[in-house]
C-alpha cells in the first residue's frame, strides 16, 4: 500500500503539519502558569501556587486552589496594602513540580509558595524552596519525612501525619473490636497506615488478621474485600488513596454494617461520591464543615462558600483557605515582602483557634491543630452532611502538642534559618 511516492509525500507533509501543530499546542501547554487576578503592575506582589491541574490529584488541586482564592479575595487581593496576585502552576510529577516552582521563583519573583498536592511533589519542592530561601507551605501532604528527617527551615506543613491520626482514632477503633485487617495502597501512605495502626492494635492486645497492599490504580477491590471477608475481622482499616471503591464493594458483598471500616486522612469528596446506602465507617480527618467545634471564622467561611457555590466546602477547600490565611497573616506580621522575614513570621505566628493556639511548631514546622474523628451516618438525609463528629477539642496547648509527638518521635533536626 505504501509503494506510491505520492502517498509517502502526503504522509511526510501531514507529519510535518502534525508536528508543527502539535508543537504549537505543546508550547501553549508548557507555559508555566496562568494568572489569577489583576494585570501585573511594577510593584505587584506575587504569591505562587504549585498545585495539580491534571491527573489523579486534579480534583484536590482544584479544591485547594479554590480555597486559596477565597482567602485571597477576603483580603481584597491586597498584601501589605499593595496589590497582589496569585500565580498558579501545575505539578504533573516531582520533576515537573521542581521545574515550575523554580520558574515561579526565578521568573515570576514570587515571595512565597503554597503547593504540593502529594507528599512526593511537596518533598521535591521543599528542597528547592530551601535553596532559594523562599517560604513554602504544603497544605495537603501527610508523609512523615516532611516534618521528620527531611524537614527544612523554609518548609511548613499543615495536615497531620498518620501517627497523629492513629493516636486520635485508636480509642474509637479499639471499641469496635481487636481483630484488624488492612487494605492499603502500595505506596508510602499505605505503608505508614499499616505499620502505625498495627502497632496500636498489637499494643492493645489485639491481632492483625490480614494485610493487603493494593497496587496503585486498582479499581476493582472486590478480590481484596472477599479476602478480608474470609478472615472475619472486626475492623478493616483502609490505607487506600480513595475509600469509596471499598465502600462500594462492602455494599455489594453485603458487608456494610457487618464489618466496620475505618481510615485516616479520608477526604470529604471521596465520601460524598459514595452512594448513601454504602456509607459506613469511622474516619480521621483534619476538618469537617459541620463540626460543632469549628471556630467562628471557620463557620463564616463555610457560610460564604455555600452562598457562592451552593454546596459546603470540602476539607481540601478548607486546607487551601487556611494555608492562604496563615500566609497572609504572617506577611502582615512581618510587615515586609522579604521572603526571609515572612519565613521568620511564619515560625512566630500565633493565631487563636477558638480558644486554642494555632501555630507552626518551631522544632519541626508542623501546624498544631486539633483533628476530627467522625463516623459516617447510615443513609444520611442530607447528601452533604454525612458525618457525626465524635471528637472534642484538646484540653489545652500542651495536650495539642503531645498529640503531634515528641521531637524524638518526629525525628526532625531543624537547621538554623
Amino acid at each position, binding site marked *: *500500500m*505504501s509503494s506510491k511516492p505520492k*502517498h509517502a509525500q502526503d*504522509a511526510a507533509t*501531514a*507529519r510535518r503539519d*502534525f508536528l508543527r501543530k502539535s508543537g504549537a499546542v505543546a508550547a501553549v501547554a508548557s507555559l508555566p502558569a496562568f494568572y489569577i487576578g489583576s494585570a501585573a503592575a511594577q510593584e505587584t506582589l506575587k504569591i505562587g501556587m504549585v498545585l495539580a491541574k491534571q*491527573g*489523579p490529584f*486534579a*480534583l484536590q488541586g*482544584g479544591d485547594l486552589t479554590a480555597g486559596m482564592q477565597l482567602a485571597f479575595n477576603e483580603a481584597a487581593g491586597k498584601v501589605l496594602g499593595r496589590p497582589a496576585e496569585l500565580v498558579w502552576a501545575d505539578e504533573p510529577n516531582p520533576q515537573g513540580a521542581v521545574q515550575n516552582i523554580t520558574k515561579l521563583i526565578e521568573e515570576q519573583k514570587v515571595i512565597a509558595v503554597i503547593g504540593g498536592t502529594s507528599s512526593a511533589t511537596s518533598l521535591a519542592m521543599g528542597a528547592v524552596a530551601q535553596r532559594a530561601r523562599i517560604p513554602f507551605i504544603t497544605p495537603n501532604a501527610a508523609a512523615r519525612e516532611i516534618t521528620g528527617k527531611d524537614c527544612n527551615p523554609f518548609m511548613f506543613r499543615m495536615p497531620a501525619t498518620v501517627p497523629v491520626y492513629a493516636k486520635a482514632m485508636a480509642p474509637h477503633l479499639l471499641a469496635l473490636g481487636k481483630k484488624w485487617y488492612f487494605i492499603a495502597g*502500595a505506596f508510602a501512605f499505605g505503608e505508614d497506615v499499616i505499620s502505625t495502626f498495627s502497632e496500636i492494635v498489637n499494643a492493645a492486645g489485639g491481632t492483625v488478621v490480614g494485610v*493487603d*497492599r*493494593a*497496587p*496503585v*490504580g*486498582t*479499581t*476493582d477491590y*472486590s*478480590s*481484596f474485600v*472477599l*479476602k478480608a471477608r*474470609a478472615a472475619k475481622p472486626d475492623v478493616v482499616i483502609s490505607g487506600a488513596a*480513595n475509600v*469509596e*471503591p471499598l465502600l*462500594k464493594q462492602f455494599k*455489594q*458483598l*453485603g458487608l456494610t454494617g457487618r464489618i466496620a471500616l475505618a481510615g485516616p486522612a479520608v477526604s470529604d*469528596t*471521596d465520601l*460524598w*461520591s*459514595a*452512594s448513601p*446506602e*454504602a456509607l459506613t465507617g469511622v474516619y480521621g480527618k483534619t476538618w469537617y464543615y459541620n463540626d460543632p467545634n469549628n471556630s467562628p471564622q471557620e463557620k463564616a467561611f463555610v457560610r460564604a462558600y455555600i452562598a457562592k457555590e451552593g454546596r459546603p466546602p470540602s476539607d481540601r477547600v478548607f486546607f487551601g483557605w487556611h494555608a492562604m490565611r496563615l500566609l497572609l497573616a504572617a506577611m502582615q506580621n512581618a510587615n515586609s515582602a522579604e521572603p526571609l522575614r515572612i519565613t521568620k513570621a511564619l515560625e512566630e505566628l500565633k493565631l487563636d483557634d477558638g480558644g486554642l493556639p494555632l501555630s507552626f511548631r518551631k522544632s519541626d514546622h508542623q501546624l498544631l491543630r486539633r483533628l476530627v474523628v467522625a463516623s459516617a451516618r447510615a443513609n444520611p438525609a442530607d447528601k452533604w452532611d454525612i458525618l457525626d463528629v465524635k471528637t472534642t477539642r484538646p484540653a489545652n496547648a500542651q495536650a495539642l502538642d503531645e498529640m503531634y509527638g515528641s521531637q524524638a518521635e518526629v525525628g526532625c533536626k531543624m537547621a538554623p534559618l
Partner: protein
Amino acid sequence: MTEILLTQLANGLALGFIYVLVAVGLSIIFGMLGLVNFAHGAFFALSAYVALALFPHVGWSAVLLAPALVALAGMALERLLFRRAYDKEPLFGLILSFAVALLIEALIRVTWGSANRDFPAPGWLDGVLEWGPILLTHYRLAVVVVTIAALLMLWAFLEFTPYGRIVRAGARDPEMVGLLGHNLRRVFTGVFGLGTFMAGMAGVLAAPLWTVTPTMSESAIMPAFVTVTIGGLGSLSGAVVAGLMVGIVTALTVQFWPDASAAAMYVLMAVVLLLRPRGLFGARWERFE
C-alpha cells in the same frame, strides 16, 4: 481455603468478562482497520458518563442508549480523523488515537468534573448469590450473562449475516473486498462503530463495579491490550479466552500475592508470548507478515 479460592475464581471470571468485552472491540478494530486504537478506553469511560447523564431522563434504557451514542461519536471521529491513519505507518494511528483519548478525557473533565461519580447497580441486583462454596454478587452474575449474550450476538452477526461476511473478508483482504464492489469506507466506519459500541457496553457494565472517574479508561485499556496480545491479534475467540485468563489470574494473585496483582497479567502475557509469539489463537495473516 477451597471456598475462598472458588469465590475468587468466580469473581475473577466476572472481571474477565468485562476485559473480554473491551478487548473484542479493540480486536475487531485492529483486525479490520489495522488501527491500534488507544482511544478505545476513552470511549469506555465516555459511555459510563453518558449513561450516568441519561439515566435520570430515560431510566434503564440508558444502558443501551449510551453505548449507541458513543458508537455514533466513534463513527463520526472515524470519518473525520481515524480514516486518515489507515494507509500510513502504524505509529501515526497510535499517536492520533492517543491524542483523541486525551481529548475525550479532557472533555469528560470539563463536562462532568474530576470528582468520582457514583453509579449504583439497580436495586433488584443487590445482594449475593451463595451457591455451595461459591459467593458471587448478583450484579457480577448479571455482567457475565449480559456479556455472554452480547458475544453470542456478535458471533452470530459475523458468522451468519452477509454484513458479517463482508467484515470478515475485509479483515483478511480489504483490497479484494473493495474490488468486489463493496463500499469499503462505509464498512470501515461501521466496524469502528461496532467496536466502539462494545467498549461502550463494557463501560456501562463496569461503572457500578468500579468508580466512574475521568481516568477509568486506564483500568480498561491496558488489560484490553494485554488480552488482545495474549489471545492473538485480531482473533475473537482468542480475546475471549485471554480476557477470562487475565481476570482469573488477577483475582488469584490478589489471594496469594496482592502486591503483584497489577503485574500478574503482564507476566502472563510474557509467558504466553515466549511460548507462542503469535498469541494463543493468532493466525498467520498475510496483511501483517
